[in-house]
């Protein structure tokens, strides 16, 4: 466990130290705030618009954070950093798990900052208390980072630097759409998680509470899916020659 945390802390430090990350968080807050100016254009629907915008931007931020690992792992493999680490007392599965945990922690911190900021802006703009479903929707969005991180680690381990992020974006996009294209069995019955399970924009906007049991189940499902995909990745990674 301590090995996994050693790798994980290196990974999240790496991301959380980049100044551009905080600039982007600030940009998201600004964009959320701007939504209040659309009162006329949306014929008075600027309140739901702001909630919607905050959730969409937070989801985009989550996928961007997750994507960073698809650059980091291939680079470490190519430059030989991975070789230095893997010749310590560190199993290959632990290396992958460390990367996944690290990216999740970084994602949690960044998305929690975005969520907190957006909700505060919402409350201040409309002088209104923040309702439970808004918290719940942001919370589930943050949980969706777990399965996404495992997808990114999967592609990052098996594909080179350019292919890995492109394939990850496509896979995340498909995974968000599995609810819509559920009748295409290859996608739905295949390896992709259904990220739509974490998407509760309408509940947040229309203040419909999400059952606590559902939240627990979907969180457990997300973790289980991530563990499954990590095992699969590690199965391939173990036989890979490392430069």
């Amino acid at each position, binding site marked *: 466990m301590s090995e996994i945390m050693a790798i994980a802390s290196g990974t999240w*430090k790496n991301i959380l*130290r980049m100044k551009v990350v905080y600039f982007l968080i600030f940009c998201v807050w600004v964009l959320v705030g701007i939504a209040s100016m659309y009162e006329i254009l949306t014929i008075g629907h600027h309140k739901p618009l702001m909630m919607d915008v905050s959730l969409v931007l937070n989801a985009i931020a989550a996928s961007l954070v997750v994507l960073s690992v698809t650059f980091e792992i291939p680079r470490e493999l190519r430059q030989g950093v991975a070789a230095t680490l893997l*010749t310590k007392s*560190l199993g290959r599965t632990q290396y992958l798990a460390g990367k996944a945990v690290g990216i999740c922690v970084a994602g949690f911190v960044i998305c929690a900052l975005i969520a907190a900021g957006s909700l505060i802006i919402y409350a201040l703009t409309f002088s209104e208390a923040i309702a439970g479903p808004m918290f719940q929707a942001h919370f589930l969005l943050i949980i969706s980072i777990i399965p996404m991180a495992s997808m990114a680690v999967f592609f990052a381990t098996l594909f080179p630097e350019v292919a890995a992020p492109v394939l990850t974006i496509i896979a995340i996009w498909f995974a968000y759409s599995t609810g819509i294209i559920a009748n295409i069995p290859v996608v739905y019955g295949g390896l992709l998680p259904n990220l739509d399970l974490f998407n509760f924009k309408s509940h947040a906007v229309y203040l419909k509470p999400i059952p606590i049991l559902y939240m627990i189940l979907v969180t457990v499902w997300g973790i289980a899916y991530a563990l499954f995909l990590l095992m699969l990745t590690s199965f391939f990674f173990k036989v890979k020659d490392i*430069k």
Partner: protein
Amino acid sequence: MEEYVIQTEDLTKSYDSWFKKASRPALNKLNISIPKNCIFGFLGPNGAGKTTTIKILMGLIRPTGGKAVVLGKPYDDVESKNRIGFLPDSPAFTPTLSALEFLDVCARLLKIPSDTRKQRVEEVLEIVRMAPHAKSKIGTFSRGMLQRIGIAQAILNKPDLLILDEPLLGLDPYGRQEFKEIILAQKQQFQASVFFSSHILSDVAEICDNISILNKGKLLCAGPLDTLLSGGGEGVTVDISGTVHVRELITEADQVVKKGNEEWELFFKKPESALLSRINNLSEQFCDAVQIRKGGEDLESFFFKKIEEDNARNN
């Protein structure tokens, strides 16, 4: 405890891919045994297969045939890595971390207890003279500084076995001297065994007690340095100059190299004791003119001879 720190049996690696077969294996049935507490120089020209061997021993790549045992465990055993220090051929470390932070990650991976970790990291930074740069980002370091961090992370856990791939590359003459001292200290103070590849022959001759020579994936010879250089045991090299009295030796030598005006290098493969004592007497009488060197050739000519013999055989 195991008698050998590294043992390989018919170790073979071929870099085939599914669309292209390699023209020859990068490593072809390598059999070496490295005794405990020795400094073992692993020599060979570029592309000989040194890095390939080292990567197999460290579990980074998988051999296509044969066996390798490191510290009594299979090469891919994760636990035994705690007892090994490794310096890769082109050291690369997380560029965004500082030297201190990176070594701390390494120390944690090596399971150094948290109460001694900080102290040990500072200690090794001191040993490799990187203490002033401890807080700088690794991304800003020069080649030589990276090599220093590389050595630091390799000796962090006071390893029983050090595996170093071209450790002296990229260092200035001072650095090379310091590194040789660090390597020697590992053997003398901590009873470690050192296995290192190099093609800087003078350094190898200086610190190694055992060597092996690899060419095109095949092992040409292996053994204690002085035995190999004296051609099997009792060889003696004598440098003579000038004086007429010593000329008689020339006719008896097995090999004569004229080194300059009135200067010769004589090599006796298996001198009999009578001859030996005569040489000894002469060297006492004419200490300027006769100098005895234990062993035979210097490593450089031995290396070239072996490689060229092998290349000629294959053509």
